[in-house]
């Protein structure tokens, strides 16, 4: 039985007068990896950022439609945005560790959500182990996070998200700034994390989408063109647009 974790219904998004997302309907299934693919500017990242309300930062963004985390209406004013962002974590395109030490990058997230002080060290250790970063950083917690390599920084950002035990993790092209080896490590990590989390990932890399996703959504010019299992999208796309894109004829 597939359980819907995160959904968007009749979603329209405008930046000023320009419509970026056009009537998007999509359901993300619990404990699956869903990839959002499509050419640059098609609205993948914009769609991703609607779920944790990152568009709240831009006053000109206007959102219509219903977005839900299970039964919780994400844009209902009654619901606290900080609580939603705790349940829906995000990993960004460029690794963005805070200008603090490795340890503080993780403890920051726990402290703002008032986790008991005595539990923090164990939670951090667990998150770093889950992100396969523990062995690389366990002796240098006090080192500035920016001194880590790009791949390590991105795994730290994943650990920082995981440490809060979210239900959904949104990833916005998390490997685009990384070399192939670091990319491989993150992909392996995503496949392990999906046992506990629902993952939505934006990617430009077709091979990556094939390697890691259960479902793939193809978007074009703000519309959701095709949404199906990874197998179907890549082997038997229903629409010509999808076929041309996944075969590399445009994009």
């Amino acid at each position: 039985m597939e359980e819907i974790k995160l959904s968007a219904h009749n979603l329209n998004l405008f930046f000023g007068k320009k419509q970026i997302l056009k009537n998007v309907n999509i359901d993300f299934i619990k404990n699956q990896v869903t990839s959002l693919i499509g050419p640059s500017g098609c609205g993948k990242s914009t769609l991703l950022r609607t779920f944790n309300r990152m568009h709240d930062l831009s006053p000109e963004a206007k959102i219509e439609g219903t977005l839900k985390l299970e039964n919780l209406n994400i844009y209902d004013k009654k619901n606290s945005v900080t609580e939603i962002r705790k349940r829906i974590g995000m990993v960004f395109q460029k690794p963005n560790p805070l200008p603090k030490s490795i340890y503080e990058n993780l403890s920051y997230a726990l402290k703002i959500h008032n986790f008991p002080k005595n539990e923090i060290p164990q939670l951090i250790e667990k998150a770093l182990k889950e992100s396969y970063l523990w062995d690389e950083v366990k002796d240098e917690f006090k080192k500035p996070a920016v001194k880590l390599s790009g791949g390590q920084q991105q795994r730290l950002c994943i650990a920082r998200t995981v440490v809060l035990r979210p239900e959904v993790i949104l990833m916005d092209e998390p490997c685009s700034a990384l070399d192939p080896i670091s990319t491989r490590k993150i992909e392996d990590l995503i496949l392990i994390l999906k046992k506990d989390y629902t993952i939505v990932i934006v990617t430009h890399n077709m091979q990556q989408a094939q390697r890691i996703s259960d479902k793939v959504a193809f978007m074009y010019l703000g519309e959701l063109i095709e949404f199906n299992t990874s197998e179907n999208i890549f082997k038997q796309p229903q629409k010509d647009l999808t076929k041309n894109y996944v075969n590399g004829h445009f994009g």
Partner: protein
Amino acid sequence: MSIKKREHTDWLLKKIFKATGLITIALLAGIFLMLLYNSIAFFADVKPLDFFTGSQWDPESNKSKYGIAPLLVSTGLVTLGAMLIAIPLGIFTAAYLSEFAHPKVKTILKPLIEMLAAIPSVAIGFLGIVLVGPGIAKIFGIANGLNAFNGSVLLAVMALPTIITISEDAINAVPLSHREASLALGANKWQTIFKVTLPAALPGLIAAVMLGLGRALGETMTVLMATGNAAVMPKGFLDAVRTITATIAIEMGEVPYRTTHYFALFAIAVILFIITLIINLLGEYFANRLRKFHA
């Protein structure tokens, strides 16, 4: 133009820039050496121990006393007060401008704040005499409002444009990705500002405070007009004080050339110079220690 000619121009420009750089350094060194040379003449007359520990500055009487302590304490008191007012006010204003203010408000407010810096110090001193001083006298129920507190308020106003402008630049320069990282973890706007944005801007904020501090320490005309100019050891913010700068300005015009008193003014100038130098070096040191946390 032939290559040879272009290379020649290149060489010439290099020399010119080198020369201008060296001239600046030479000027600075010259000023310091001149101060030092004259103060050595002072220490030939007065024991350094008396200079630093003496609690009286009284060069005019028969038994001239050259104790720098009251002047030093005065300068410290006025500057400390100014910083206590200007640092929180300046940084919070900068944070408001950068994080909260509507773009329209910002376009009006920023030039207005920068204009504060253009007010001549003599006008600010005048305001201190006719407005702030009497106000202070009324509020605290004292006879005369020309005291350290008055000076602090005025110096705070003078240091504010520097602190606000540079702090605002520093806060603006914090990458959006830091704020996004914090917000995406579920931090609210306040937590993000106080725990991420301001700490990330700290090297710049320290620079802003150091420049503001330098402005307050070196300011002469305003404190000369507004602090009462009593060269005695102050007991608190409501006592009249006389700063090092004011002392030099008042006495330099009257003092006979190349007397102990004349040299004494150079000596206190050297002390001021050293204090400013130490503060700048400390600021630089702390800012550098923090910078290693940045990419």
